């Protein structure tokens, strides 16, 4: 009897461990309804062709015109499918990207569309889950998608990239930064790659003499985080600072950072580099403050969104620096008008994901115009034409001026650093 009980206990423990492993990793949610909501929202552009002249402000009226979908303008419609987390642990990114893309789409439609085609954006939720992003992609395919604007996060981008390569659909990820996101010839990106971010962060810290002793805390179970870390560590050797402590954590162990912070503190680090997403970063900042560890924090684009964590004490993020291609307080006309529109429509200051989303749509526009895409072309033809056009265009976007691409899918642009000051991102 006792033996039976024991084997039961063991079996039970193992099953439960297995199951929890999946559960916490996915951060999944039953959000069918949310995704639908998002889709309805984005469908506002569908009626754009008739109202193009009236300007983007009229999209509210368009909501009632969902059924005008089939009509199409003179040049038909170009169906762009977006994929990103609208709910879940990385929702800040997805929502911002969707909003930014929507603004670009509205502007383009108001100005007459692309080659006379009206742009239609359908943004699907993937909850930052690779499996669900493939489902979202399939939904978009049923909808008749012609160009993919996604995914927002790296792991999802990679999952979808395999599918778009098979189906020959052009894919432009606004913010999927892992190397493999653009491994296929049909995939390109707007943001910096992880190696790029890692090396650029190390150079930035070195050139501006921000620190002499640096500690790193990264997520070894995440491709984004470990990718940045590796390049950062490689580049650090050429810089004036040294890495004195490295603390890794995994998806199953991301609530207690006391050990990693203690190690950093003991090693006398004056800066902690956090190539991670904002949820864990918020915890790290809270725990560092409660253990009396007063140190500079430096992160990459993943930290963007930290001010939006519900109930998070934003004063803790004061002085946090992050490398990002976009600063909302820049004074150039493009940024000012984008920030104003975004503020009016969504009631908040856009982060860099919104800017990535905005630039992605304009990049698609530039490439589509260069390649003379028309709505009746097959997906394969569109894909091949855009692929060639991408290497020939130059885009002046929110996230950089004169962005160019090479055939590998990597953009060329300069990074900017921002610091959180009085609760807002400020250029450094």
């Amino acid at each position: 009897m006792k033996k039976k009980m024991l084997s039961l206990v063991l079996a039970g423990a193992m099953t439960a461990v297995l199951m929890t492993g999946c559960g916490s990793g996915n951060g999944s949610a039953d959000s069918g309804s949310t995704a639908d909501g998002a889709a309805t929202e984005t469908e506002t552009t569908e009626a754009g062709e008739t109202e193009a002249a009236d300007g983007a402000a009229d999209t509210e009226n368009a909501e009632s015109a969902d059924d005008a979908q089939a009509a199409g303008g003179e040049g038909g419609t170009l169906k762009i499918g977006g994929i990103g987390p609208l709910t879940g642990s990385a929702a800040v990114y997805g929502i911002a990207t969707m909003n930014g893309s929507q603004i670009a789409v509205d502007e383009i439609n108001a100005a007459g569309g692309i080659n006379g085609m009206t742009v239609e954006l359908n943004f699907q939720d993937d909850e930052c889950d690779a499996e669900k992003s493939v489902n979202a992609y399939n939904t978009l395919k049923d909808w008749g998608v012609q160009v993919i604007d996604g995914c927002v996060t790296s792991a999802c981008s990679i999952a979808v990239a395999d599918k778009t390569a098979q189906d020959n659909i052009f894919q432009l990820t606004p913010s999927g930064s892992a190397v493999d996101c653009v491994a296929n010839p049909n995939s390109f990106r707007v943001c910096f790659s992880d190696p790029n971010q890692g090396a650029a962060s190390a150079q930035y810290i070195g050139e501006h003499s921000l620190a002499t002793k640096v500690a790193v805390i990264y997520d070894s179970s995440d491709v984004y985080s470990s990718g940045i870390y590796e390049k950062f560590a490689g580049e650090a050797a050429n810089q004036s600072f040294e890495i004195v402590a490295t603390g890794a954590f995994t998806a199953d162990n991301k609530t207690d950072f006391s050990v990693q912070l203690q190690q950093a503190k003991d090693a006398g680090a004056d800066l902690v580099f956090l190539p991670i997403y904002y949820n864990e970063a918020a915890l790290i900042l809270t725990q560092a403050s409660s253990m009396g560890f007063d140190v500079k924090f430096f992160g990459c684009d993943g930290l963007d969104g930290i001010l939006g964590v519900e109930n998070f004490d934003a004063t803790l993020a004061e002085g946090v620096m992050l490398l990002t291609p976009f600063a909302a307080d820049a004074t150039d006309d493009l940024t000012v008008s984008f920030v104003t529109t975004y503020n009016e429509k969504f009631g908040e200051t856009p982060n860099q994901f919104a800017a990535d989303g905005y630039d992605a749509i304009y990049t698609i526009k530039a490439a589509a115009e260069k390649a003379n895409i028309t709505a009746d072309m097959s997906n394969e033809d569109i894909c091949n034409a855009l692929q060639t056009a991408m290497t020939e265009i130059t885009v002046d976007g929110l996230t950089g001026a004169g962005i160019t691409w090479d055939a590998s899918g990597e953009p060329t642009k300069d990074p900017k650093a921002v610091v959180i000051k009085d609760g807002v991102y400020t250029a450094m």
Partner: protein
Amino acid sequence: MSFVAHLINGVSLGSVYALIALGYTMVYGIAKMLNFAHGDVIMIGGYVVFVTVSGMGMNPLAAIIISMAVCTVLGVTIERVAYRPLRGASPLAVLITAIGVSYLLQNIALLVFGSDTKAFTNVVTMPNLELFEGQLIIKSVTIVTVIVSIIIMVGLTLFVKRTKIGRAMTAVSEDKGAAQLMGINVNGTIAVTFAIGSSLAAIAGVLLCSAYPSLTPYTGSMPGIKAFVAAVFGGIGSIPGAFIGGILLGVIENLSKAYISSQLSDAIVFSILIIVLLVKPTGLLGRKIQEKV
């Protein structure tokens, strides 16, 4: 000094495990079933406090009492609806049901609260204890958790040994049939066990989220599993064993993070479960019960 700091952080983590393990061991010791949903009751307890304190601006102490009440009702309901009908069934069926209840609770929380991480407000507002001119900081929430765990451990031991209901629990755990013949209300006794276990879960939830202020529908599952390991480690069914097992597990986890590998700490923790079961199946303080043939 850093060793001491790691040790204290380990005790901090361990005291949370201990608190959860007490609830596990309580239910196992009396009802002889593993309540895998315990970790998720903790999560619900955390959400109740989050909603009442951060959403409604209630006094934290009142919020904890509300949370305990909600969890008690929840625990008794789960017992009545999911476990009592299976009282005569094989232990495997009950175990699977418990895992099912665990997933049910997680998904209900997902539906109600969404999957966004909520930053939990620490309800322990006392200042931290600073030693050696601030080189060593012991968080007030750690001190509170350790003290609360000790009080609960002593209280439960006394309750089981000294009170009438407590003795009825012991009787039920030893032989349900005989206990019933002696006039003990078996179902009632087990319901009381679940009520106590679940109200402990509410306290554990609040202290877990205060120490590690992130709240998601999965918050309870990993600590729940580790607390289960702690309960087995200390001898499942033994109340002091759960406390000692929890503290030891937290310390082992933190020291292996600090000195072996921060990525392998979970693997090490679960290896300990396997080794303990192989070497000393009853755990550190587990009683060896002779089975009479």
